[in-house]
């Protein structure tokens, strides 16, 4: 029987402070044990460890650190669903971002030493589920929604000062979802999905017909807009949501089509700061075959392959980042999370608890591991 009492709580939107308290309590007990397990498992030196948000059947939501060979190295329970994990490789930390509309973010040390910290957006904001660390790890940029105006915002938090919010700048669009920092360390690219949601009505989209999605290239030092690329009116229902940069500096996106599936265009595209958006070359599975939804994108370590997951179609497609053509397709039910796992390799996680490490586009053997009672959420990050 469902465990919760129907009279127990109110909506998440008003439970911000209560959530933070609960999250800290939940973290206190298992931290030391989990850290020991992580060390015992060789986690500190391992190069095949992944982080992901997940739902653990019977145990609620969590952040997991897992190994490619099927071990859960650490489990951090959460009282609400998280979305992406931002990784600070310099200071060996990660931030789990609550999913839209999100009211918390949780920072934890990857090696289990540091005290976890929870931070929240201001009262009139909510998180969209993604964040990006500055190169030195001192700042984290969070995609946010200004509830009053409906505009997108990038919130800036100082990680050295208990993640206090030290400023913000516009995302230059509505509904910023993922934001990534380019290799210059100064340019943030925000995927403005094009529509917002009202916290009072949960995740329902507002004014989809009026969508104007775009990719905005923003100077993080000044908050100024350096370049912005949108989509033609005919495909303005393609919500630009997830991003990855390739070796040449092109920024790829995976989109979510907000119209009827049969009308979906190609869902994958790319742009540069000085070049407008170009959709992927036709020839691979088209937008309708991918069921109108790309859940995440990643670029291989050598920068030559893009992977894009299509959970509703149960597959991942790979594209050559030079030619812009689909070169390979892998079937995996409810596949969504993607992380690079070598020069031409990816790890794929699924909502059915599978992590599949796919050799490459050339057909190398795949390693598939099932995590019982686990449903991996949208994103997977290599630690």
């Amino acid at each position, binding site marked *: 029987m469902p465990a919760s009492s129907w009279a127990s709580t109110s909506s998440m939107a008003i439970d911000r402070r209560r959530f933070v308290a609960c999250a800290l309590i939940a973290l206190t007990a298992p931290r030391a044990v989990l850290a020991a397990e992580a060390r015992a498992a060789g986690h500190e030196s391992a190069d095949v460890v992944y982080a992901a948000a997940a739902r653990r059947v019977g145990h609620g939501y969590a952040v997991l650190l897992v190994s490619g060979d099927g071990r859960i190295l650490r489990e951090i329970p959460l009282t609400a669903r998280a979305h992406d994990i931002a990784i600070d490789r310099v200071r060996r930390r990660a931030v789990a971002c609550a999913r839209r509309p999100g009211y918390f973010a949780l920072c934890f040390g990857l090696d289990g030493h540091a005290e976890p910290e929870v931070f929240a957006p201001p009262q009139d904001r909510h998180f969209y589920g993604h964040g990006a660390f500055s190169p030195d790890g001192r700042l984290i940029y969070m995609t946010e929604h200004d509830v009053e105006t409906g505009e997108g915002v990038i919130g800036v938090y100082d990680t050295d000062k208990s993640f206090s919010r030290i400023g913000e700048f516009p995302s230059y669009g509505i509904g910023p979802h993922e934001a990534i920092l380019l290799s210059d360390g100064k340019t943030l690219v925000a995927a403005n999905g094009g529509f917002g949601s009202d916290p009072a009505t949960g995740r329902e989209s507002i004014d989809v017909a009026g969508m104007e999605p775009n990719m905005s290239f923003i100077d993080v030092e000044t908050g100024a807009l350096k370049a912005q690329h949108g989509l033609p009116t005919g495909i303005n229902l393609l919500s630009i949501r997830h991003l990855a940069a390739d070796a040449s500096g092109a920024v790829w996106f995976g989109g979510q089509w907000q119209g009827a*599936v049969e009308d979906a265009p190609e869902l994958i595209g790319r742009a540069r700061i000085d070049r407008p958006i170009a959709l992927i070359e036709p020839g691979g599975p088209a937008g309708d075959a991918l069921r109108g939804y790309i859940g995440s994108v990643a670029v291989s370590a050598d920068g030559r392959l893009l992977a894009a997951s299509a959970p509703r179609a149960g597959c991942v497609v790979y594209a050559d980042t030079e030619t812009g053509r689909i070169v390979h397709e892998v079937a995996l039910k409810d596949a969504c999370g993607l992380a690079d796992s070598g020069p031409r390799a990816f790890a794929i996680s699924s909502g059915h608890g599978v992590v599949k490490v796919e050799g490459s586009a050339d057909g190398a053997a795949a390693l598939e591991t099932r995590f019982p009672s686990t449903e991996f959420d949208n994103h997977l990050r290599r630690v």
Partner: protein
Amino acid sequence: MAAAIAAVLIVGVMDARADGAPQPKTQAAIVRDAVDQFVLPRIDTFKMRTHELASAVPGACKPDAQPAALAAAQSAFVETVRAWAPLDFVRFGPSARNHRLERVLFWPDPRATAERQLSALLAARKPELLEPGALATQSVAVQGLTALEVLLFSEKQPLGRGDDEAARYRCGMADAIAAALDTVAGEIQSGWMGDDGYRAKILNPGPDNRLYRDTSESAREIAKALVVGFDLVRDRIALPELHAVSRDPPRRARLPFERSRATGVFVVATVDALKDLYGICAFATRVGPDKTWMTNFLTAGWDGLATESRRLDEVRAGEIASKDHLHVVRKLRFDITSIRQIVVRELAANAGIILGFNELDGD
């Protein structure tokens, strides 16, 4: 043909026993029955109601119109709301094309976009916008029930009162919106029909079908519609209400169709339709032998939803955040969430309809 008839007969035998006890259905039968017994009849009803609405609205604006004519138009509006509720969660097929869902019901509308844009149109009084079909080129916010409700239920400027230019334009705009709704309803209806219509597509999955490669995909579409309906009740009704009454001081939430006092009508019709679709899918027969407690739990949950949805208007009209008010809204959220969870994780899964975590609710 003989094989097809035999298949139908076999399916029929599987669907019902002589003693009338419901039996599990195949995925193909779930899709067929959901389309033919749920979706299509309700689209026909909706089309009938929009036609009646488009006929009734001009009556309220005749020079010698009596108050009863406005009341008749308002009643036709409420019946259209009642007819749309079961279709609002069928978010695939012809409804999903050309912004038809939003052109019928623009919601959520947290910044009152429909009313603001409608006011701008009324102020501009462009005669060409009242021509047949012209409204379809305007913002979706001014084309449907959300905008028409503003005109039909205005207390300050009752429709049909006054014979100045502004009053006549308001009447013309109301006529145009009602006609636009009827047009959209007709497009949805015709989109399901014919050899190339959506009914043929969803009932005939296969390798050449770009939308549904096999029956599991079309069955997932039906099950997802049910889940979308659960989510809409939670997100549009229960959560905003809980959010508002839990604030300090408690506030009134803004729910759909408050101006026409049809919020309860909309919620009851939604909940009743969800139960109908749940019954057509025969999900209650999919309770596992080791979880027999679910049978009574589900019955109590559906009974609770019926009760709470029917009490919603009453408790919202009373003292805000009263014990009764909180009870009804919290219980509504609990029941809808519990049933959703059991349907997704147990009943649909036991019918072989696997709804992936990310597929169902990715971001």
